[in-house]
């Protein structure tokens, strides 16, 4: 038993991991101590763990995503340290494999998506004048399934060993023969659990945006961020089932001995790549489209102009969504699927640059002759445009199948996708968070610190990734754990850039603390002279969002309301508001899911079945639950609104 614990269960033998273990235990003890000392357990349970409020769920998503950004960032710094000098013995090859695998997986699945979904959760219902999402209970299930999936995945670091087959987890490398043990199972089960939650989010937001808009808000009057969320949800709904199946098939391969991606029994390892990218490419657009939406909102607000080319913006997103499903083979041109296949996917890939280019020109057009204010959110948006264009142009280079045989698997590719994912998604998340921060927490983030953080991050980002294009041309392969001497100078530059980015991130996080302490509080809801409905509510937003649902009379609903002096509080037209009840079932259900997932990871079937029974029991309880929420009385609404609006008048 002890033998099993020390040799298989816990990861042993590496000082870095011992350090991580100690810090994890200490942090956990500290959290428990603080919660007990300040008697906050009840508060935590009532206000957060059982909440179905889209705003709180959104905030929890964002907090978790920032924690994951930290984890993924530490992974990145470890890799950069290892690659700075030739012959480094900081990480061994196995450890390096694990680090780049967890870095990629965490950044995409547990950082970028939850960050954006968190912003969507907070903002979309407010932008369309709704009081919650269509299925608030399901929304809580989604969040907890993400949290549990992320927890399970991160646990692999100290219990059982991290997955090490890359974030793409290619077979047969990730198969049972070449890679036995729990590590790849962590990847499969962790992604499976959080993926199901993401699918539910997609369905939820489709129904929300299609059916819960305020009266008068036609599709073409929706704010552009809501449009991007609608398209993203559509892609999620049809792409995530593919991932679900792919992960399930490999899980069955590993645990029950089927032969899908094996080298025996006529299995086909490349089919994994095919299925993975059938999901994986739409996934790329899932993490970029909401960011496009954020930049559009930010640029329009800070250029103090209506978004230029709104219709073109919408249609280009629709076209991108359609094309996103027909380009997946460009991720494995070198598989050798043949000239016909490669040419087709080469052309569809290049086509995507057309609608994307349209969007770039729309942003520039919006700023043209605008009276631009350079607040931090706008800086992120301005930094995004040139950096993202660079990533887009190198993307077109990679799209050419014949040329791709040269770029494939080199640092050129690494530089390309960081150029689009960091400049697009990460800048977008930072822009969105600073932009909506006053709405979420009642105060802006400090501008000076925000600008310091921006410049460190922007400069660090370019110093880190521009050299990688040249390293790629010089033949440095992706995922290598040690470098040749002739690649050293550029790698040193790149590592310096990584440190600058880390400083930028640290300042960003410090800014959260600093602003909490010292930023002046918002006295009214409209922090940036905004244009869409989220700014029409008071700050902090009452839990029912809108006392009276506004009637939308054109695009930029709140802009029009401001001109006519209207508010979302019409004293004479109040009605009791129906709201959903909080529920602890999602949290408990996903706690059982954690047990089931952990059992499956270790192939302890009894534990897995016990966990699944718990999940089913929670569904059973939910099915017999006829609690359909409660009504907020007119008096309570009046009291809340009068109090919140007193300072405004």
């Amino acid at each position, binding site marked *: 038993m002890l033998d099993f614990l020390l040799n298989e269960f816990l990861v042993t033998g590496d000082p870095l991991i011992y350090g991580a273990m100690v810090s994890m235990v200490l942090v956990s003890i500290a959290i428990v101590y603080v919660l007990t000392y300040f008697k906050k357990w009840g508060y935590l349970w009532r206000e957060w763990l059982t909440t179905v409020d889209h705003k709180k769920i959104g905030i929890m998503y964002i907090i978790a995503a920032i924690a994951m950004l930290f984890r993924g960032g530490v992974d990145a710094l470890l890799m950069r340290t290892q690659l700075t000098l030739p012959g480094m013995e900081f990480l061994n090859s196995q450890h390096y494999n694990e680090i780049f695998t967890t870095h990629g997986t965490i950044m995409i699945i547990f950082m970028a998506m939850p960050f954006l979904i968190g912003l969507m959760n907070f903002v979309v219902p407010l932008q369309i004048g709704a009081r919650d999402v269509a299925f608030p209970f399901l929304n809580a299930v989604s969040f907890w399934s993400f949290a549990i999936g992320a927890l399970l995945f991160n646990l692999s670091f100290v219990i059982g060993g991290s997955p090490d087959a890359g974030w793409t987890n290619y077979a047969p490398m990730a198969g049972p023969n070449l890679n036995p043990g729990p590590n790849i199972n962590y990847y499969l089960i962790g992604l499976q659990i959080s993926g199901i939650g993401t699918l539910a989010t997609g369905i939820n937001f489709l129904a929300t945006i299609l059916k819960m808009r305020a009266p008068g808000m036609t599709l073409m009057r929706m704010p552009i961020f809501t449009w991007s969320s609608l398209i993203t949800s559509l892609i999620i709904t049809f792409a995530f*089932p593919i991932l679900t199946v792919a992960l399930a098939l490999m899980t069955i391969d590993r645990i029950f*001995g089927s032969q899908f991606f094996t080298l025996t029994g006529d299995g086909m390892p490349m089919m994994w790549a095919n299925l993975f990218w059938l999901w994986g490419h739409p996934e790329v657009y899932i993490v970029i489209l909401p960011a496009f939406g954020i930049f559009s909102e930010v640029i329009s607000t800070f250029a103090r102009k209506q978004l230029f080319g709104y219709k073109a913006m919408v249609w280009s997103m629709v076209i991108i969504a359609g094309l996103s499903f027909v380009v997946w083979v460009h991720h494995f041109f070198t598989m050798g699927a043949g000239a016909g296949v490669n040419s087709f996917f080469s052309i569809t890939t290049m086509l995507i640059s057309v609608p994307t280019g349209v969007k770039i020109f729309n942003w520039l057009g919006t700023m043209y002759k605008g009276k631009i204010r350079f607040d931090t959110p706008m800086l992120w948006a301005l930094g995004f445009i040139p950096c993202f264009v660079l990533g887009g142009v190198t993307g077109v280079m990679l799209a050419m199948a014949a040329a791709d045989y040269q770029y494939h698997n080199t640092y050129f590719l690494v530089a390309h996708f960081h150029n689009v994912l960091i400049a697009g998604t990460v800048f977008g998340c930072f822009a969105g968070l600073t932009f909506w921060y006053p709405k979420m927490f009642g105060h802006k983030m400090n501008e000076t610190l925000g600008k310091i953080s921006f410049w460190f991050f922007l400069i660090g980002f370019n110093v880190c990734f521009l050299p990688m294009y040249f390293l790629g041309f010089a033949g440095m392969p992706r995922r290598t754990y040690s470098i040749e001497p002739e690649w050293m100078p550029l790698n040193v530059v790149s590592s310096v850039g990584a440190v600058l980015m880390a400083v930028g991130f640290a300042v960003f996080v410090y800014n959260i603390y600093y602003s909490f302490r010292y930023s002046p509080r918002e006295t009214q809801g409209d922090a940036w002279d905004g244009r869409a409905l989220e700014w029409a509510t008071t700050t902090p937003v009452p839990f029912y969002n809108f006392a009276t649902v506004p009637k939308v009379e054109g695009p930029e609903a709140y802009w029009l309301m401001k001109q006519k002096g209207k508010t979302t509080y019409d004293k004479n037209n109040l009605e009791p508001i129906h709201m959903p009840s909080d529920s602890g079932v999602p949290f408990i259900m996903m706690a059982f899911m954690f047990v089931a997932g952990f059992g499956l990871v270790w192939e302890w079937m009894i534990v897995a079945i016990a966990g699944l029974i718990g999940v089913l029991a929670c569904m*059973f309880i939910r099915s017999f639950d006829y609690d359909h929420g409660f009504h907020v009385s007119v008096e309570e609404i009046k009291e809340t609104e009068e109090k919140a609006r007193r300072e405004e008048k």
Partner: protein
Amino acid sequence: MSAESDLTTGPLEYRSHEDRMTILGFWIFLGAEIALFSTLFATYAVMFGRTAKAPSPAELFELPMVLIMTFLLLTSSFTCGIAIHEMRRGSLKGLLTWLAVTLLLGLGFLGFEIYEFVHYAHEGATLPSSAFWSSFFVLTGTHGLHVLLGISWASLLIVQLRRRGLTQVTSRKMFVVGLYWHFLDVIWIFIFTSVYLIGMVV
């Protein structure tokens, strides 16, 4: 919660905006289910013929049994439709009767499917025997699991219907289960056609 109004006429399940939204949400979910099953179909199609040393599908598939399974499921889809029809006429008794018939037919289908799997296993075609048989068992097994889930779900609903009668909520729940059941038949039609019939032809 809703910006749109509730109705006072029409089928019970469509009266409240919330219930209409739930039904729409379920339709969207069915769209996702199509993507899920089409991935399984794609895997099956790609793995077709990759039987290694196991028997080929043409040796094992038998038309009479597949036809019986198909007719069981087709009929159950029809009786489920009648159950919803009775529900809309306001007849709880008619609804429960036809729903019970539907579930019995579903159980019959499952029985045949289990028999079929056991039979194939005896003939040397199991999940691990080859890529083709892996994809066959996972595709049909996923469908079978859906049928099992549908039966359990509908059974829970029978309890609720007996307890509460036909209300807006129970009608909506019943309608959604109905959609699910018909959808399983849609999937089976494609399994029947592209797995069994094509498996026997090629």
